[in-house]
């Protein structure tokens, strides 16, 4: 559906006009041709630079960092230009990224959306040489290495698979590191099942297979977002020994048919209480006791706990399902706006933002930078898996964990090292959505 309303037409037109104007101005001052400070383009007086950058506004769409105004305010304060953010759902974010390229300058999205977004040609490759601390980024992203842990063999759309482009302007992913990146990561996490220890009885939750345990009939839930829900379902089905996959992250048509048949059977048997689509729904299902065991996102568990209800984010023997978010550049950016965008990417890695997100349980692209802004107690709790030396308070002033608590699943190494699958976009995406709809309709 070409969603071309009058308002969007005008907005796009204005944005394009502004972009043209900015590019022209920038070219006139001979700034865009060579990096500032090189012989061809000696650095101009500081006032000129700041004044120009002050007029820049970067429009950002996204699901992650874009949702938090505090981060935007801090970035504006540190960088001196304006950032407009639009918080969206994962689905809307992809839709706009693909169909309305004129609407954004920065794309804050998940790695698994890249196989959809990159072929549209709406993102421009990030020049890795302009990212000062690129080498310090956790090697899961840049080299698919993590001290030999099993995350290196993880299936699905793992970040390294979509991290690099073959060359500037290419729409194809490179298999080796190149100088051209798709997204610069800023947050990621390992997801698993959450449960209510007070309602689950004496059973220990140790395996994904327990989501299908008849003991919890009518008390479980999974996500109703095909790309993510299918991965959780695959973990469950595989753990329960109901079927085997060649590659969970890229199923064949037969595998998709088989797994939806299993899901349908479970639904018929009344295994599920509900399916959820948004963060808040998952929190409400758990907090109200409608569901005692379900697939969950880490901050959702925290949100349940913040209501004074006990909830555990179970470390399971099969491993975690992970996701990663990063920021990419729109193809519209050039000249001084592009410079500003690179400044933002560098600022993002600098540590303040990593620490801010770290206090909510997310991991940062460069943990040692985030550490600079965290107290030793915070670092020990969130990254080292040690008992909290003091109450853990999130950036909004809410106490998340009492003194003495230990993070479910342990340290950064233990949690991220045990990732076995990432959120995925499969080749058979169309078939998957069709079968998923069948499952919901059954």
């Amino acid at each position, binding site marked *: *559906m*070409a969603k071309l309303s009058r308002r969007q037409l005008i907005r796009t037109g204005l944005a394009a006009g502004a972009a043209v104007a900015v590019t022209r101005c920038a070219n006139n001052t001979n700034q865009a041709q060579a990096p500032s400070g090189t012989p061809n383009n000696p650095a101009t007086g500081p006032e000129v630079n700041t004044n120009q950058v002050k007029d820049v506004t970067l429009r950002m769409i996204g699901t992650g960092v874009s949702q938090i105004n505090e981060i935007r305010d801090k970035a504006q304060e540190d960088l001196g230009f304006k950032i407009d953010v639009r918080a969206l759902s994962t*689905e809307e974010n*992809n*839709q706009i990224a*693909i*169909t309305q390229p004129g609407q954004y300058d920065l794309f804050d999205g998940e790695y698994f959306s890249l*196989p*959809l*977004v990159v*072929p*549209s040609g709406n993102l421009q490759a990030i020049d890795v040489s302009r990212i000062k601390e690129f080498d310090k980024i956790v090697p899961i992203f840049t080299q698919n290495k993590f001290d030999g842990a099993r995350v290196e063999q993880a299936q699905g759309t793992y970040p390294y698979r979509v991290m690099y482009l073959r060359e500037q302007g290419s729409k194809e992913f490179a298999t080796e590191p190149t100088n051209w990146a798709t997204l610069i990561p800023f947050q990621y996490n390992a997801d698993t099942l959450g449960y209510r220890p007070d309602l689950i009885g004496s059973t220990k939750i140790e395996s994904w297979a327990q989501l299908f345990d008849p003991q919890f009939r*009518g008390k479980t*839930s999974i996500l*109703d*977002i*095909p*790309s993510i829900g299918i991965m959780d379902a695959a973990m469950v089905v595989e753990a329960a020994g109901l079927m085997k996959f060649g590659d969970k992250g890229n199923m064949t048509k037969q595998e998709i048919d088989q797994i939806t048949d299993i899901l349908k059977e479970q*639904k018929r048997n009344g295994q*599920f*209480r*509900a*399916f*959820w*689509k948004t963060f808040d*729904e998952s929190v*409400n299902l758990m907090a*109200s*006791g*409608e569901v005692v065991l379900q697939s969950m996102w880490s901050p959702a568990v925290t949100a349940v706990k913040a209501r004074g209800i006990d909830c555990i984010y179970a470390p399971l023997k099969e491993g975690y399902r992970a996701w990663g978010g990063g920021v990419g550049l729109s193809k519209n950016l050039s000249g001084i706006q592009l410079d500003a965008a690179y400044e933002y990417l560098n600022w993002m890695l600098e540590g303040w933002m990593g620490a801010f997100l770290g206090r909510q349980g997310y991991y940062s692209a460069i943990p040692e930078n985030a550490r600079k802004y965290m107290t030793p107690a915070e670092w020990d709790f969130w990254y080292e898996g040690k008992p909290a030396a003091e109450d853990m308070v999130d950036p909004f002033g809410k106490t998340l964990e009492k003194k003495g608590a230990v993070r479910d699943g342990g340290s950064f190494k233990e949690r991220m090292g045990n990732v076995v699958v990432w959120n995925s976009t499969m*080749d058979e*995406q*169309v078939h998957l*959505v*069709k079968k*998923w*709809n*069948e499952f*919901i*309709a*059954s």
Partner: protein
Amino acid sequence: MYKSWKTVQPYILALPQTLVFLLFLIFPILMILLVSFWEFNGYTMVPGFTLSNYTDIFTSDVYLRTYLNTFKYVILVWFFCLAIAFPVAYFLAFHIQNQKLQIILFLICTVPFWTSNIIRMISWIPVLGKEGLINSTLMSLNLIQQPIEWLLYSDFAVVLGMVHLFNFFMIAPIFNSLMRIDRNLITAAEDMGASGWQILREIILPLAAPGIAIGSIFIVTLVMGEFVTVRLMGGGQSASVGKLIQTQIGSLQYPLAAANAVVLLIVTLILVSGILRVVDIRKEL
């Protein structure tokens, strides 16, 4: 000169409205129709001409089942809305003599519209849930031992939610019809010895029919496209055509979603024209 101006005048008066309709109703529908024949390459739509979106719909039993399920909701919601709306409208129109009170009571019927429909939905959850108001009351009275699960996340909850949301669309037109009934007709019938039941059947019901028809059109069109209530109250486990389209749009499959939208539009139009055949609503307008 003057005469020709007179003939052109109504057209010029109608022009702005026509343009608005063309731009915001006809044009988008034509776009949807166009896109429904396009192809989908896995991440975006490609202009082209294919019937595969339609053959998918008509050959898969998922769509048939989803439509049947949606019809089930339409019939149930329509029935309960009518069953509630008619007595309410009747009471307002015939039993409240004070006009001021009548208006106040009518406005009270609009109270549910003072908050967003999502909030109205969510507020049902603490009432119907396993640990909700009804279940905990029944359990503390020892009437049940286990919480009743079908209260929430079930077809019952979906229908309840929709009746709650849409009832007013039935009340308003029926009330309007009833208010237009000439009271002398009823007096005359009483004078000639008709019973209350006869008056209702022979006079009030036929004269209220246009209002019922208009209300029915509202209900049918609203329920056919409904997806938020189905998702929230059905706990994501119930299917409707609207929800199916939403899932397809969510995964960027616009051509397939467009084809579904076209089919849904046609089915809804058939239902509406069916209602119009039974009742002549022009009498009302």
